[in-house]
């Protein structure tokens, strides 16, 4: 059987791909749209497109026409390891900021406001921001 033969399976896969493409195009247009009403209409169309693509996918899946490749244990383990590494790197990079926040006493919402104001208030510009072990990170 040739792959380009007109079968229900090929037609259904074409429907799914057309709706995916429509959703991609709509997303780009929403991001570029300045007019609120047009933007809202595009967003409604996009939601409708998502729902229709799901209907087509469900039918293809029921018929056995669309069988996504499942991730094997090796792939899952690789992603889990990479994610753990990424999270550790993020935590390490967030560490100095967290210590700085504690140093400035911004655990409370009021403290947070003071912290935000310190970036714009000229009276607070002589402060140094310290990171961890007493070394100034930068001075303002």
């Amino acid at each position, binding site marked *: 059987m040739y792959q380009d033969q007109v079968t229900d399976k090929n037609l259904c896969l074409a*429907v799914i791909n057309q709706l995916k493409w*429509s959703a991609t195009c709509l997303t780009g*247009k929403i991001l570029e749209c*300045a*007019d609120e009403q047009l933007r809202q209409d595009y967003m409604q169309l996009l939601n409708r497109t998502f729902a*229709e693509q799901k209907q*087509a996918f469900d*039918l293809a899946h029921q018929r056995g026409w669309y069988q996504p490749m499942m991730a094997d244990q090796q792939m899952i383990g690789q992603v889990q390891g990479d994610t753990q590494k990424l999270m550790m790197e993020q935590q390490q990079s967030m560490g100095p900021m967290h210590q700085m926040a504690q140093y400035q006493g911004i655990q409370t919402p009021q403290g947070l406001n003071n912290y935000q104001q310190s970036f714009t208030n000229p009276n607070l510009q002589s402060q140094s921001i310290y990171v961890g072990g007493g070394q100034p990170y930068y001075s303002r």
Partner: protein
Amino acid sequence: MPHATGKITARELIDLQSHLMLESTLVGQFNHFARECTDPQFGQLCQNLAHSRMDCLQKLAQHTNIAPIQ
């Protein structure tokens, strides 16, 4: 009515035209698929999709009612 004041950006107008063409193509294709397929449930889905995309086309077409810029 959308854009009654003639305020639409050039980018919006180009995007609108291209999407109207895309929706029009989808209506034609889904109608064609509905006629070509043998599975009744899939045929019904294609017909529904064709109607739905026609609604989208009509709704978007309203945005082309643009008054001339004063």
